[in-house]
């Protein structure tokens, strides 16, 4: 039953997913808590044309993807912050617009750059069973940065999310922590591309954290639970994908979605959501 896990490429997929679980457990919780889920989805989508451009122009794909995702995250974050100040909460219209534009641009560019649809598909949905050493290094670096940032900036991210107006009055005037959060969202969006692609990034960055949120009432416990959950969902998804010969990124996403649905039906979670 466990023989898939003896295959080297499956083992590498597992290592990648374990590292990304650490990223999902730390940063993912802040993304959910600060209402950045849609922005994270948008940043990953924005990375797609960046990757295509990088490939066409011949520079590092990761750099291209990160540049585009960063541009997106900072622009949406800045505009979102202004809207929050003026109206107390924003809608996702702007994010949706840029997301569509990014995807469409990426597809148009890709038709010029790539000649096989398979490359486009792996950018959009990941190629979890073809993970390279560079992908693992990027995931490890992103996980480390997310851990360090949580350790240092967690209390500030919490205070700003708890009540933004009072946080300003408290003297949380520095924009640095919140800007760093957006930079990290862009970094995370790029780090998960190899595993689940531009369109399924939130399966790792948002869904496990949103699931564990239903069962936890402290940030620390929530983050630990999210790491464990994301790792378990990843392992189960990879195993299912190999056994059923299904696309791995999408399988991980389906597993994560199913677990969320199950947990949301638990009595305690229903109470928490009410």
């Amino acid at each position: 039953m466990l023989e898939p896990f003896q295959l080297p490429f499956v083992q590498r997929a597992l290592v990648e997913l374990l590292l990304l679980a650490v990223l999902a457990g730390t940063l993912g919780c802040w993304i959910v808590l600060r209402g950045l889920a849609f922005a994270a989805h948008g940043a990953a989508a924005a990375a797609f044309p960046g990757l295509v451009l990088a490939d066409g122009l011949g520079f590092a794909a990761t750099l291209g993807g990160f540049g585009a995702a960063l541009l997106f995250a900072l622009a949406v974050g800045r505009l979102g912050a202004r809207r929050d100040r003026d109206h107390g909460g924003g809608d996702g219209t702007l994010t949706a617009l840029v997301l569509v534009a990014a995807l469409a641009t990426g597809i148009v560019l890709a038709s010029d750059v790539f000649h096989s649809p398979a490359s486009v598909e792996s950018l959009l949905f990941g190629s979890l069973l073809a993970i390279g050493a560079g992908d693992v290094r990027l995931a490890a670096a992103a996980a480390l940065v997310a851990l360090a940032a949580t350790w240092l900036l967690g209390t500030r991210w919490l205070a700003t999310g708890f009540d933004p107006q009072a946080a300003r009055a408290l003297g949380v005037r520095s924009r640095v922590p919140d800007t760093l959060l957006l930079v990290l969202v862009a970094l995370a969006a790029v780090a998960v591309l190899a595993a689940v692609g531009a369109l399924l990034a939130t399966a790792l960055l948002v869904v496990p954290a949103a699931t564990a949120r239903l069962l936890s009432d402290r940030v620390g416990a929530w983050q630990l639970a999210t790491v464990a959950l994301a790792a378990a969902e990843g392992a189960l998804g990879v195993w299912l994908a190999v056994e059923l010969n299904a696309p791995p990124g999408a399988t991980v996403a389906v597993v994560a979605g199913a677990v969320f649905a199950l947990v949301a039906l638990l009595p305690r979670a229903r109470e928490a959501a009410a």
Partner: protein
Amino acid sequence: MSALVAASDLAVSYGGGEPALAGVGFDLRPGERIAVLGPNGGGKTTLFRALLGELRPAAGTLRVAGRCASVPQTERSRLDFPVSALDVALMGTIPGRAWWRRPSRADRAAARAALARVDLADRAARTYGELSGGQRQRVLIARALVQDAEVLLLDEPFTGLDATSAARLEALLAELAGEGRGVLIATHDLEQARRWDRVLCVNGRQIAFGVPAATLTHDVLAATYGGAIVTLPPAHAGAPGPQEAILPPHHHHH
């Protein structure tokens, strides 16, 4: 004794437009509780934001000698947030630290001491959103105390509290004033305002400022609240004469 806050001919506007509040002149002395009365949108929040340094005076002068801390309405904060009472009190230590620093052991001790000060030491580990309204209000006061604020700005702190919680909060405010802090309380409750030291009535501009007995006349209240005043007959035979009250305000958040 020098004033903690002194405003003279103060006007405050948002983004350089028409002043949202003008002609404000008052002072807050240590140990004093001042009620800030006015309709919603009458400039109470604008005044608080100016005191906190978020809005700069468009005209006149505003001198704030002590550290100001705001105690917002508890519904403004996220009740579904995964934080304990201690986590919230600990947020008060943020102003004292550079942004890359974590709360120290001393910060934690200060937050615990502040919770004990508002009589919530035994609730430190409770989830904030699960506390009662009065307890949440006291946690937010603890957050202000952690900042060692000499001036406390409370935004309708008694809204939604039952009589016991309200009495407890009122006693706490008296104690904090007794320690030499200045307390400004935005409220709609005239009875309460009459028990405090002075009242500041605003409605786009300052209507009146002074001790309650001399200040809260029918004319002042009419100018402050427009038509939303009713005169209540004495509650029972032998009760003091007719009383004025404000109709329940229409709540709308900005």
